[in-house]
């Protein structure tokens, strides 16, 4: 009985030594942070991928829409850095502007604040740039060019290309895409 008890005690010592436990705990200690890192990377990548796909879709949608409208431009009525108004060849009016974090559209001839509705949300900023026939930048005065003002018509008539830059929030920063449109049916405003 005594012998057996001693034997028993020896076996227990052989099974779980302190060293083994330490190694196991150390391994778990190494493994857990490593796995956590890998998984957080995966999660982060997953998030990045979803965001990328989502903003790619949004870019495509908005740029497509604005390009299509600008291509139908007949006469340019308001040309400004952050808003534009023009009449199309089909007799429609298109006004685009930035408000809060939304790109807003109005298709009435006279647009009050209530007439605008969101075309896209979650937008960081937009920018309209105007170019002449040599693709040189046409300077837009503060407050924009108005077709109803005599002195602005000459400058508006010079505009041949219109660039729309869309800046979206992307991950921790922003990213931009732009479309340059040559509205070939644009008419000159008579002085």
């Amino acid at each position, binding site marked *: 009985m005594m012998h057996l008890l001693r034997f028993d005690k020896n076996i227990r010592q052989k099974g779980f030594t302190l060293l083994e436990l330490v190694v196991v705990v150390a391994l778990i200690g190494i493994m857990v942070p490593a796995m956590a890192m890998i998984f957080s990377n995966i999660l982060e*990548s997953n998030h990045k991928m979803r965001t990328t796909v989502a903003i790619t879709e949004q870019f495509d949608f908005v740029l497509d829409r604005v390009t299509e409208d600008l291509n139908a431009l007949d006469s340019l009525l308001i040309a400004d850095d952050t808003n534009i108004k023009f009449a199309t060849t089909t007799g429609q009016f298109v006004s685009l502007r930035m408000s809060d974090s939304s790109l807003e559209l109005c298709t009435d001839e006279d647009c009050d604040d209530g007439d605008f509705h969101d075309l896209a949300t979650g937008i960081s900023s937009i920018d309209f740039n105007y170019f002449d026939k040599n693709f040189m930048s046409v300077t837009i005065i503060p407050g924009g060019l108005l077709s109803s003002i005599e002195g602005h018509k000459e400058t508006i008539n010079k505009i041949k290309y219109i*660039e729309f830059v869309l800046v979206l929030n992307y991950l921790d920063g922003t990213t931009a895409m732009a479309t*340059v449109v040559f509205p070939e049916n644009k008419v000159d405003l008579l002085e």
Partner: protein
Amino acid sequence: MNKHKCTAGRSRAAGNLLIDLVIGVALLGLIAAMLAGTYSNLIQRSVDSFETTRATWMANSAMEVISGYPFADPVFVDGSIGVDGHESVMTTFDDIDDFDGYNFILESYPAYTAAAAVSWADISAEEIAEGADPKFFKRIMVTAQNDMLSNPVSLKTIMSAAGSGVGGGSQVIAEEELNNSFDTAQRIPRTSFYATENLDVGDDSYPWASINSNVSPGTDDDYYQFELQIGERLILDIDYGYDEDDVVDGVDILMRLYTSARVLLAWRDDDNDDQYGGEGSIDLKDPHLSIVAAYNGVYYAKVRSYQRDMGTNHYNPPTDEGNYVLNVTIVPTQASTGLGDD
């Protein structure tokens, strides 16, 4: 004995725990690494698709810029692809094929380049129908590239010499200052001339172009240059210039026509007959004049206020300023080429 066996079994089990764990960890690590690899591959694809979308929009933008230029060079009509004569930088380009070999850098697309290639359309590649004249079709290829993109984006289009706006300049033209001398005369390209309806033109069955302009200040001179072919009649008609009550904010015009050597060919102060003018002249003080081209080449028109022309004795400085419209008609001959309708 029985107990011994039992404890021996436990001993094996206890010893395996460590190895099992090591293998387990190794396996998990392997799986995780594979998962991460697959994921990073997916990420790369989504980044690629994003960059591709962006490159496509950039190529599209470059394509739009090119398509805004006339189909053929108005001056160098030999039909060669590439830049002609002095066209060394983009601001001097005047037709589509000048962009052959040009690299676009757009401010809104940093780190991207879009290379343009222009050539005649290829019948054998079925780009245009068999039997069509390839000289009427140009192929534009724009290839957008960026370091992060595994495959560049190429867009291709075929431009035709026919079609609205593509073959020519715009028919209604705004005056471009400074055009106050022969050297800075505003060029009105032949491709701007079309025969469309215009009551202000004497006979709108002939190709015409219309220039919206003004004299401002009173000392302003406006020079324009036209390219004529021998035998063609040029008609210059001032409209909406002078009116007594000044309701159109016009100006009394005096107009001269010069040869390419800047020799005076003709001048007119007032309207003497109604043969060519059509409507649009509110007062007989709106002149028009007409000549037949005696040579192939450039002709200059010089437009200024009548008051300015009277010299400093009468009006110093001249005060009459305002808007006018210059309607220009070219009556073509059988041999005429290069007008917007061609």
